[in-house]
Each structure stands twice: as C-alpha cells, then as structure tokens.
C-alpha cells in the first residue's frame, strides 16, 4: 500500500510517498511555499508519483499536515504536525523519547512514550526567536546563503552572547556586535546558541534522552551541537530531517486505511 504525506510548512512544502509493505519512503521532494498552496502541493505530489512510477489511483491515502494543511483540499484528511513529527521520528528512530523540531517559523518539543505515542508537547509559534527565522534574518543581514552560516559558525572561537529575546531587536544587537569588531563566526555561533537556549527554555524539565532533532533547521551543522550544550545531553539529527513531518503524515494515512 502506498500512502502520501504532504507537509505544508510556512517556508516549504514537503511530500513523501511511503510504501507500507516495504516500510520505506519510495519518493520525497520539496518545493518553496507560496500563496497558491494547493496548486504547489498538487504539482509536487504529481512529481513524486512520476518519480516513483506510481499512479494516483495506487495511492491509498493522502494526508496533509503543517501550517497550511487545511488548504490542501485534495488530501483525504489532515493531522497536526505534532502527531506527524512524532510518528515520523518514531519510525526512523524508535528509541527516541524527545523530539525537537525547529522549522522556519516555529519550534516544538515533543515527548514520546514507548511505542512513539505523544505524551506531552510544547510549541513556540508566536515568537520568531527560537526558530529558523532568526537564522534567515542573519543570513539576509550578512548577504549570504542560509547554508553558508554553518561554515562560519564552525570557525567560532568564542560565541557572542545575544541577549535580546526578540528577533527584531536581536538584529540591531547583531549589527552592533559586528560594528564593534566582533568576529563574524562568533556572532553566527551566538545566534545558534540563542536559538538553542530558547528551545531549551521551551522544553523546561521535560527532556528525556534519547533526543532526536528534526525539521529544516536540523540541516544546519552546528545547531545540534548548540542544542546539546543548551540541553546538557546528546542530540541526534534524524536522517532527512526536513521530511519527518511528511513521513509521519503518510504513516498516519497507512494507519487509517
């Protein structure tokens, strides 16, 4: 049985096709998010079908998740991203007990029981500090690609302390630090630490290892290390972290079919 999962996030749409017999993803892809969410999602879905050599009628269920899930009207059902990320991570890392997902505009900490059931969760979707948005702002300000930031952070000798809790004011603070001559790698590493600190505060005392790190921001090297320091425990990046939500959606489809 093939099920499709579509994660309509705030910055990108991710989709996977999952074969429940083989217990693996047979296709995955992503596209930039835009105003016509449903059309973009539909095009991505068609592309995956071609990639996997599968027809639409062979897909038993389409499940949408993420910020824009209700706009994907061709989906059979919707499931929240908390449940989907939990299921997605559990499939790939069955022993995970805490999932940290940092996306473009939100961050989540999800506590799992044995068997991958969600026990508890906390979300920050009201404030950009502690999300990928902070890194995007820095990249824009430094006129470089988001993915180049991690190269810089790696070179840091002494990460800067970013004190502002608000991304808007933190931007001013960063400009000030650069004007004072603070090395760029230290500033970028400081931003990573600030995000990790906010996520650690969101988690409170609920962290139970093993901790799995997922979401688009997990792709940035250095962030896992920053989280490890903030949480004082090892943090492991889930393979293909940007697809866990879509994978979890597809798994949800397999459950209900």
């Amino acid at each position, binding site marked *: 049985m093939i099920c499709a999962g579509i994660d309509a996030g705030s910055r990108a749409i991710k989709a996977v096709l999952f074969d429940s017999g083989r217990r693996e993803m047979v296709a995955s892809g992503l596209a930039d998010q835009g105003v016509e969410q449903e059309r973009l999602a539909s095009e991505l879905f068609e592309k995956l079908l071609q990639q996997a050599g599968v027809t639409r009628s062979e897909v038993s269920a389409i499940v949408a998740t993420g*910020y824009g899930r209700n706009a994907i009207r061709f989906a059979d059902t919707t*499931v*929240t*991203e*908390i*449940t989907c990320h939990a299921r997605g991570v559990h499939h790939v890392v069955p022993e995970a007990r805490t999932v940290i997902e940092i996306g473009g505009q939100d961050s989540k900490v999800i506590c799992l029981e044995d*068997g991958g*059931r*969600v*026990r*508890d*969760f*906390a*979300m920050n*979707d*009201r404030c950009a500090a502690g999300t990928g948005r902070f890194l995007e702002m820095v990249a824009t300000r430094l006129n470089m690609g988001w993915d180049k930031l991690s190269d810089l952070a790696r070179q840091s000798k002494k990460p800067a302390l970013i004190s502002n809790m608000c991304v808007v004011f933190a931007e001013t603070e960063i400009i000030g630090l650069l004007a004072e001559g603070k090395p760029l790698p230290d500033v970028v590493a400081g931003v990573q630490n600030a995000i990790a600190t906010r996520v650690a505060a969101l988690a*409170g*005392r609920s962290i139970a290892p093993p901790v799995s790190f997922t979401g688009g921001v997990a792709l940035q090297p250095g962030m896992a290390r920053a989280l490890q320091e903030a949480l004082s425990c090892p943090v492991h990046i889930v393979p293909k972290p940007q697809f866990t939500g879509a994978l979890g959606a597809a798994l949800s489809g397999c459950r209900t079919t």
Partner: protein
Amino acid sequence: MNAAPRQLTLEQWDEHYAQLRAAGLREAAYGGPLRRHVDRERDFRLQELRFDNSPAALRLWNFLLTENERLREARHRGAKLVGTMKDLGTVPVMAYSLPKVLAFYPDGAWWTPCLMECSDKLQQQADAMGIDASFCPVRAMLPAFQNGEHFPRPDLLVCSTGAVCDDFSAIAQRLEHLGYPVFWWEMPRRRAPSPGEAACVLPGNLAAPRFQVECVRSELERVGRALGEVADVDLQDARLAEGIRAANKVRSLLQALRETVYTSSAAPLPAMEMLVAEMLAIHFCSDREEATAVLAELLATARARTEANAAAVDPSAARVYWVNPVADLRAMNLLEDCGGRICGSDFMFSHALDLIPEDMPPLEALALIALADPMVGPAGDRAGRIVRECRAGRAEAVVVSRIPGASHCAREGEIIRRTVHEQLGIPAIELEVPSVCDAMLPTLASRLQALVETVKSGRTR
C-alpha cells in the same frame, strides 16, 4: 420545548427563541432574546459563540449578561453594594447574610473586553492608567471603576492579600492609589502542619495548622465588622449560619451539576455553559436566590438529557479536564470543535464548590473554606485535587489554560502537568488564551487537535 441538544449560533437562537415563546416559554424578569445584549450592551462576541439550545441555558446567559443592570437597580432601591476582590467565594457568603447587601466581583470585568470585542476600550484605558498588557486581563476593572459604564461604584471594597497573585495585587493597589479605599485582609500562604503542630482538616482533602485557621478567622471577623458597618446591622453568628446554609444550597446544586455532566458518557451540557454556571458559585451573580433557581433548572436539563441519552457534544469526544478559566469564552467552543469535551474543571475556585461546614461556629467554617483556596497553597495541592477529579471524570487529557500576564501561570502549569503525567499517565498541555483569541485560533486549534489526536490514538491500543 424539549428539543434534542444542539449548539446554536446567535442567529439560530433568534429563530429558536421565537419558537420557544410561541410554545409558551415563561421567563424571569431579566429574560428575553440573547440578541438584545448585542444591540443594547454591545456584547458583540455573542455573534461568534455557539450556545446550548435549552431554555435553561437561555436563562443562564440572560442572568449573567444582566448583572450590571441588576446592580444598578439594587443601588436605586437603596441596597448596599460590596465589591469583593481576589478571594473567590468566601466574603460574598458573609455579605449576602446581611439584609439589603449585595456582593459582586469587580474582577469580573475581565470578561468585558471579550464580550464587547474590545469596543469597550477598557484595555486601552488601562494602558493609559499605567497597567499594560503584561498584566492579566483583570486590569479592565480599573477603567471600569473610573468610567462607571459597567458596574456602580461599591459602598465598600474588600480585597484579600498576602498569598495572592502579584498582578491582581498590583492592580488592586493601583485602584486604591486612584482613590478607591480598599479594606485589605491577610491571607496566609497555606502550608502543611509541622510535626507536633495543632492541625485542622480543610475541605478538599487538605490540612493546615490551627494557627493559620485562627489567623484567617480573626481576619474574617474584621471583615464582618466592616460589612456590618456598611449594612448598619451586626453580622451575628445566626445570620452568618443562615447565609452559609443558603450558599450551600448553591454549592450543592453545582456539585450535582458537575457530577451529572462530568461523569456522563456523553456530555449533556457543553463546556461554555458549564464554565458560566460554575462562576455562579463565587458571588451568585449578584442574586443568590435567582442563582439557585438558574442552577436548579440547568441541573434538571442535564439530568433529563442524561436519562434520555441525549448528548450536547459528540460522545466520542476526547475527555478533557480543563484548568483555569479562559479570558475568551470562544475557547470553550473551540475545544469541542477540535473533538474534545470537558469532563472536569478547576477554574481557580474549587474551594467555592465545596460545602461550607455547618456544624461549627460560622466564622471558623468560613476560615477553613477560605484557606482551602487552591491558589493560596502549593501548586502541588492543587495538582492533587486535579488528579482526583480527573479519575472521577475519567479524563483522557488535561489542558492548563494560561491567563495572559497572570503571575501564577509561570510555574504552576509545569507542576500540574508533571503530577498528571506521573500519577495518571495522560497527556497535559498548556496553552494561552487572550481576551479575544481570533488571531490565535489556528495555533490554539493546532494544539487542541494534536491533543485530541494523541488521546484517540491511545484509545486504539
């Protein structure tokens, strides 16, 4: 008149009201169509809410929404008005024991910005008075006093202090600085008795040192004298005992209502009506006798529906225990929209739902009840009661609703959630509901939906 339970929009209620009237509906003097509150009082929020379709619910809403009128009429008749602040449920029992005295909670103005969808401008006015949005929505009370457009100025203001939340305490102090004298009384922070210390058993399965009960009793004696001066009548034990009996009638009705609704397999009444009904416990919505009648009718409706297996909410809904009242009533509709139902509640005044002992001196009994306030002692005690009630209501999840700016929410949520996990193993989340939550509906819905998904996936195991 015995239609199957449904939740109606305001528009649907217009039509339903006409049908009820045609069928011979008899109402109290404050009755009438809900629509009039939008037209006359600018309670625009009613246009976004869904209401239970029973005549009992209609009576409840009309009772709630006509309180300010009732207070003004009482003032006109020469009654004395006592504004009781912070202490939820004890001083009003004393006030209502006196003839021609009504007590009400000025703090109740916290719902005005919600009901009027901020057209009241109370929040902006509070900003200008130096109390901004970082304080809890009770700040709406300050300009409500100043502009006199909501409740009349009370003849006496009584406020508990000590073991109370900071933001409320700060707002009440600001009120005093603005020229409203306040009669303050001390509430000690409840603690467990030390080994060998004389102890008292409090309602709600709690204990406190005898010393603390004595402290509160002597403070309530002082309050009683102040009330007596306002009423020009001594608040003697006999009066107080009668007042306690009358209050206990209300409390008994509420207990029965909670039991009927919360333990039922299919909720006979929706969450929003239950929240409003429970609020009657604290000061009887300024009419103790009528509050008793309103609750009796609600209870009869709930019982009849339970017997007929008639559910107001989907029977397969996730059973959710709700902690803390919401600044926007719409959140209670949202819970049900997301597939949940309420099976228990702690709206911060569980002590006002317990019966006041009638077999001891009245002031002593009131001191015991006042000390049993969940907000006065450790959050662990509160969590303990929540766990017991979760078991009774077969809760599958707990929602701790944070009140924006409320100082107690910073830490107690974590303690409550941890206790619930450890003792019940059910999910517990926190979410924050502002006075008008429209902009946050998607994020609130995500959280509640995720909680319901978690609950329902657990059911298939």
